[in-house]
């Protein structure tokens, strides 16, 4: 499943890039992120509680960044496992300067498995888009603090 979108952020790409690779900002922005721990360079362990409304589950996750080309692009690999199944995703994130803002394009290949795939398939894409939306919303709110 491909989930993609574009967001406009009120900072130049270099600042956005720095924030996106800053664990403190990530922790604030990732929906339901209860813990984010650095395990290696560009690698983090996370504890997430994600879902929608009553349908929420706990996931142990890993986040890894690769293919870093500041300030233009990088790739984020996500893995989450919980009792309700697993979510794996690879998101390519590209930053484009537009005046004083940054156009952020993301293109994520998301793979969902287990219970959530078996019984929630009709909602997964919309849920993924919503979570992505929540992330960038929270991220842009977290930005000023990242300065």
């Amino acid at each position, binding site marked *: 499943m491909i989930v993609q979108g574009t967001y406009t952020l009120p900072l130049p790409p270099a600042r956005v890039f720095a924030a996106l690779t800053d664990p403190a900002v990530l922790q604030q922005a990732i929906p339901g992120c209860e813990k984010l721990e650095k395990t290696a360079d560009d690698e983090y362990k996370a504890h997430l509680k994600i879902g929608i409304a009553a349908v929420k589950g706990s996931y142990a996750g890993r986040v890894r960044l690769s293919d870093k080309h500041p300030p233009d692009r990088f790739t984020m690999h996500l893995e989450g496992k919980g*009792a309700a199944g*697993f979510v794996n995703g690879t998101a390519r994130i590209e930053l484009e300067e537009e005046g004083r803002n940054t156009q952020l394009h993301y293109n994520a290949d998301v793979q969902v498995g287990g219970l959530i795939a*078996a019984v929630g398939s009709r909602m997964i894409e919309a849920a993924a888009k919503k979570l992505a939306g929540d992330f960038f919303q929270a991220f842009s709110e977290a930005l000023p603090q990242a300065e």
Partner: protein
Amino acid sequence: MSAAKGYFGKPMKRVEDPRLIKGIATYVDDITLPGMLHAAVLRSPYAHARINNIKADAAKASPGVVGVFTGADVNDKCGLVPCASPMPDSKIPKHTVLASDRVYFVGHPVAVVVAVDRYAARDALDFVEVDYDPLPVVSDPEKALEKDSPLTHPEFRTNVAFTWSVANGGLDAAFKRAHRVIKQRMIHQRLTPMAIEPRGCVASWHAGEGTLTLYTSTQIPHLVRTLLPGMISVPENRIRIVAPEVGGAFGSKLNLYAEEALCSHLAQRLGAPVKWIESRRENAAATIHGRDQIGEYEVAVKKDGTLLAIKSKTLADIGAYCQLNTPAIPTLTGLMLTGCYKCKAMRMDVVGVYTHKMATDAYRGAGRPEATYVIERLMDIIADELKLDPVKVRLKNFPKPTEFPFDTLTGLTYDSGNYQGALKKAQQISNWNKLTKQRDAARKSGKLFGIGLSTYVEICALGPSKMMSAGGWEWGCVRIEMSGKVTVITGATPHGQGQETSFAQIAADKLGVPIEDIVVMRGDTAVAHYGRDTYGSRATVIGGAAILMCIDKIIAKARKLAAHLLDTKEKSVEFRDGKFSAKGKPKKALTWKQLAPEAYVAKNIPQNWEPGLEASSFFEPPNCTYPFGTHIVAVEVDRDTGEVKIVKYVTVDDCGHQVNPLLVEGQLQGGIAHSIGQALFERTVYDENGQLLTGEFMDYAMPRAKDIPEYLMDSTVTPSPSNPMGIKGVGEAGTIGATPAIANAVMDALSPLGIRHLDLPLTPEKIWRAIAPVKVK
């Protein structure tokens, strides 16, 4: 009381019904044994992954948990899940009961929790931590054949599980002679049987005796008893299998599953009975699926519609491993590919392919629905391309009734048939001319209206032992009890088909006793000592014949006793209407009720006459049976939404003589319902990562009452010479005959738009995409 007769052929209501309609029947989940523990199975959420590590400590500490077991704990004690029908070149992977180092489909059992109740067992599943490394997945059988495809079983270095071919006649010559060669690719979508009762079992180990009783929701208790000793270390004669009431199966319980061996082992290991009941989600993921073939079909025809030859290359997506009969299913497709038509040459090449999905196996019809669908679609396509009437094309290619027994190119001998007769009758009762006029009028007013036809023949009552992997006979036993009551025991294991009634009808007639005096027992290997169980529409035909054999033996034996008691010669004893009398002295007749006590008390019996009135028999069928018929369907397609509405459904089926027409009708209607599902909406969906997306009733669409049309049903009677009653199996005929009729009707409705073929299921969206092409994002 006058002796009853004439039960055979009567539409009698069923003797098994009272317990079922009162809710006092016993299904496997209704069984509770003292000290019984409950098992829950942890299954893989991945289609393909390496298991690095399983941590069970937290689960073991969970309240009520008695034990948590992984592959490392049990696999060496549970043997391998068997495949009974490998092809000569089959590559059969080691199918352990729990995954060892790898999982290779979603739902693959990884660990089992045993606890004091089902709630505690379910809770503990959440605490078993499995560290998986996901591996590349292949869920598309065509991709699985590509060079760089991920491998389901890397040890084989290929995803090809087996190959199989059937061929006869001069194929090249036939194709050279043809006026026209028509090609069509067809996909037979994967289906999920979805019996409303999921699987389940209760295993009970009797340590003192060293015996095991396994209650299991199965079609095949006897085959399970034959096969289970190969898995667990308990010999056959110390195993008792009980199939209690079984809540539907449709082929999905024609298997020996991992969980049955696992619970048997755990009961021994833990010294307590162990129950496991499958959830619906597990049922969708880890009980066999059906169909799933992709075929390229080619026919050679003359311009008058004469069929010369047919060939196919078929890919059978068998999933991740071979269950009991997995490789055999597509061979049935091959054997029946020519349908009810004469043909000069045929060839079918099957490649069975492993993918990261649940195994396919026998689902209602098992291979034959694919064959009938192919040939019946091709008949319509031939008619369409040659601008011929589809009825005439069929009539042109039928063998004449006088040509039976009819030898087919695939080596079968169709026992009896009159395909023209069924077709003609179906046309009559469907009011064919009026129906075609209705279609013309509907088309003129802009409606999409279509008429479809299927003239089918199928192979059932499987079958002579030479074509089966473990005997094709059936066993029966009849006992006139000391009281004169009759106990009939069958090795066939009916589970809803109604043989408690139809076998009682058969026995009552033959014995000349009221049907109320008869009890039919089945489904328990301690009672029905032998049997080959119920599948392939075989129980009434083969099991019924075995009972008749028993009764013949008993009558012969009783004749001797009667002669002795009537003080006459055996030769002059007549048996009529349940009474034995000396010729010319009907008034001094002996009934079974009078004979039976003499037979058992045995104080006044002939010399060298063995006491008792009991006989058992194995009936070995000389041939399969080949029921046939014609289904005619009219549909209307909603131009806007693509929805299909069946507006007329006519069937004329011929299953020879009918023991109980009410049960025949029930089997046909039930079978047709499966077809309506297959034709219009059922499909098992895996995504490209091997995730099962139709894992619940919420996503797997099955027919409901409102999807069922009003039927016009009739029959013709062409007795089978393969058994003493002249009957043929009918459990799958509906499913085999109906699907192509519905598909042909829909394609006929769409034909004015120039659409030649759409694959099943004919969902609204698929039809809409075909009739109103739009740009899709």
